[in-house]
């Protein structure tokens, strides 16, 4: 293997002869420049991860010295903790339904926004702006908007003749859909990426499809989708990670509506997502050892899903410059 050239230093003789740089790697300098990142990485990423891995094998209540209990936390989680499975079920729902609906809605919105010729910047800004709203404020706003009694949406539904409008965040059958609607309102962040992807599709491909007599669906199916598949893949991976860590909106809506001593995840545990449950275990019940075990399971599952996504992506993701992941 040839020694790589050092960037910025031309081979051969120059007009002004410079002293030949040392071939030794300047480790001290490298370490010096790396240290801000390295220290942060060690202190804020590696150390907490290693420590939480250790805590996951202990009984640790934040107050007493951690006591080693081996795999007991994991055994309890999988065999005795009914709320663990409830939180898994809710989280899988938000990942499967919430993320899918959000991506479809983002593609649809972005497609619509590629069409107008006038006021396009205004429309894009209008659709993007909600994604800038702080999650807590947005969740509180939706608690009001979707209030079954005085919320404007149900009043609209009632005036439109809907006899029995949904109870939204007060009913387990509709509470998660309320969060999905909240997610769709703030879809601007995903939409803007899809919009960029759609605008990047070469026009000549559509022209070629037109010449071949393809209809709108065929063009979308055979041209648009393959060309924006890297963006779909990116949104899917980040969306799944987002879904597994779903917290703020669920925490706010469930605690605002449950004004007294009820369990998190109101109503009836329907908003008890994995991260909410993890938080509850660690910071309400002070079961930090157990919370650490939950966190590691979450990490492993999220990592596994991401790897599976990357592995399977070669079958359906098309890069203009060739394969990305091998």
């Amino acid at each position, binding site marked *: *293997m*040839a*020694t790589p050239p050092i960037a910025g230093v031309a081979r051969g003789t120059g007009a002004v002869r410079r002293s030949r740089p040392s*071939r030794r*790697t300047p*480790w001290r300098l490298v370490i010096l420049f790396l240290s801000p990142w390295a220290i942060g990485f*060690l202190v804020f990423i*590696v*150390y907490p991860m*290693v*420590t939480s891995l*250790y*805590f996951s094998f*202990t*009984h640790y*209540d*934040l*107050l*007493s*010295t*951690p*006591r080693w*209990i081996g795999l*007991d936390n994991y055994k*309890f989680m999988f065999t*005795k*903790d*009914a709320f663990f499975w409830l939180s898994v079920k809710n989280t899988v729902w938000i990942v499967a339904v919430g993320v899918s609906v959000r991506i479809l809605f983002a593609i649809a919105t972005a497609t619509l926004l590629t069409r107008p010729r006038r006021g396009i910047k205004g429309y894009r800004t209008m659709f993007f702006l909600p994604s800038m709203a702080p999650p807590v404020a947005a969740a509180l706003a939706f608690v009001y908007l979707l*209030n*079954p*009694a*005085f919320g404007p949406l149900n009043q609209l539904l009632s005036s439109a003749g809907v006899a029995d409008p949904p*109870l939204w965040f*007060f*009913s*387990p059958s509709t509470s998660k859909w309320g969060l999905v609607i909240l997610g769709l309102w703030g879809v601007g962040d995903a939409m803007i990426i899809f919009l960029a992807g759609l605008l990047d599709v070469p026009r000549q491909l559509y022209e070629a499809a037109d010449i071949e007599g393809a209809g709108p669906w065929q063009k979308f199916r055979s041209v648009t989708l393959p060309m924006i598949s890297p963006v779909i893949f990116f949104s899917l991976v980040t969306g799944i990670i987002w879904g597994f860590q779903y917290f703020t909106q669920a925490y706010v809506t469930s605690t605002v*509506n*449950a*004004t*007294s*001593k*009820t*369990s*998190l*995840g*109101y*109503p*009836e*545990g329907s908003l008890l997502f994995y991260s909410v449950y993890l938080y509850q275990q660690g*910071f*309400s*019940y*002070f*079961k930090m050892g*157990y919370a650490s075990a939950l966190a590691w399971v979450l990490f492993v599952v999220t990592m596994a899903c991401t790897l599976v996504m990357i592995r399977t992506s070669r079958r359906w993701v098309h890069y203009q410059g060739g394969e990305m992941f091998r």
Partner: protein
Amino acid sequence: MTGWIRQMTIGREASMRRILVAVTAFALIGAACTAGGDEGPASPTDANASHEPVTIEIWGAWTGRELKQFNAIFDNFTAQYPWITVESVGAVDDPKIIAAINSGTPPAAVLSFGLDSVGKFCQSGAWQDLTPFIERDGYDLSQFPDAVFKYTSFGGSQCALPFLTDAYGLYYNLDKFENARLSGPPKTISELTDYAKQLTEFNPDGSIKVMGLVPFSGYYETNSVTLSIPFGAKWYSEDGTTSAVDTDPQWKAIADWQKELVDFYGGPEAVTKFVAQQGDEFSSSNDFETGRVAMNIDGEWRTAFIENEVPDLNYMTAPIPVPDDMADSYGVGQIGGTIIGIPKGSPDPESAWLLVSWMASDTDTLVYMANNVRNVPTTTAALESPDLEVTPQFQTFLDIFANPSSHYKETSAIGSLDQDLVGGFLEKWQQGKVTDLQAGLDQVAEQINAELAQASGP
């Protein structure tokens, strides 16, 4: 492989080894790092001797108006102990206090609303056992009603002292009672159910306009704890090792009572719709204050809210009714409020003890706080003080506190998890999602027992 790459690889492996060693050391140090133990108290502090001036901090959960009123008490303390200046820090919740204890930087004294954590605080030693101070100074514990010890101590450790308390009773609207030709408060559960039905008003479309009483667990202060005390439902077996949710028939009585009222109102959906329109609990839009409910379970502080927000409201208070076959116990209620203590690693436990013991027992301070914050004072002397401003509505809560059977639920090593499990079950039950009540209670008890086993460890 060139020398350059080999050097990089070898260097990387060596660095990785060093990093791993360092990380392992970090983890072990972190795991072993807890605030050190505290030595027992020295000799009693002589207030008349000369002392170096000290400033101590007390952290607590008070906020806003109540924090200002709370902060005003420390001038009197400094007048009594001139060398000690107290700095009060508000809006500090239990997790923050725990984090400070873990990092070895706690304040001298702490105040908490988290009664459910007393078991953990005492058991772990995070809050110091005050017994050595109490014994050394001959501190008189008989000044407190017996009930306070249930929520200030655990496992033989008296790690907290009471500083005011809450008491829960029934608020009822006298105008609505008059309209329904009802006189006096209901005293038994069957009377309560009957009154609730008579006081309920429906709209022409069948929806509920005014509800007699909302039976849902989770509605304001109506929950598994406030209901369990008047119903006489036990949380744990006598020895505290197993849940009694499955064996004590009173839990079934609570559930049956809920169902009867829910059915009367038109089913879970009708009640849910009504509850969805509730006003904010701690504002003038509170349902009792606006007249949406004729009766409601609430704490003594509501009297202050009503006085400030709807002074013309014609209402009265009473103990929460009890089951018909337990009529003798009428007057009992849930009590339990603010606790104070000395955290592990307190920088000045002696001064903190002076502060904590003074706060818990100084009559003028307790009366001042009771008159302003409208909580129940926690010593016999303060309860009998002529300076205590007592309205007929507030007197009810003093009586509930004075009732020897009033208490807080049994504390345990699992904190508030038991309440959440029972509360979660009642949520499902009141929505009609539970077909076999006993099987459901069995399952809840099993979960509580599993949590207890996990908390106590192998």
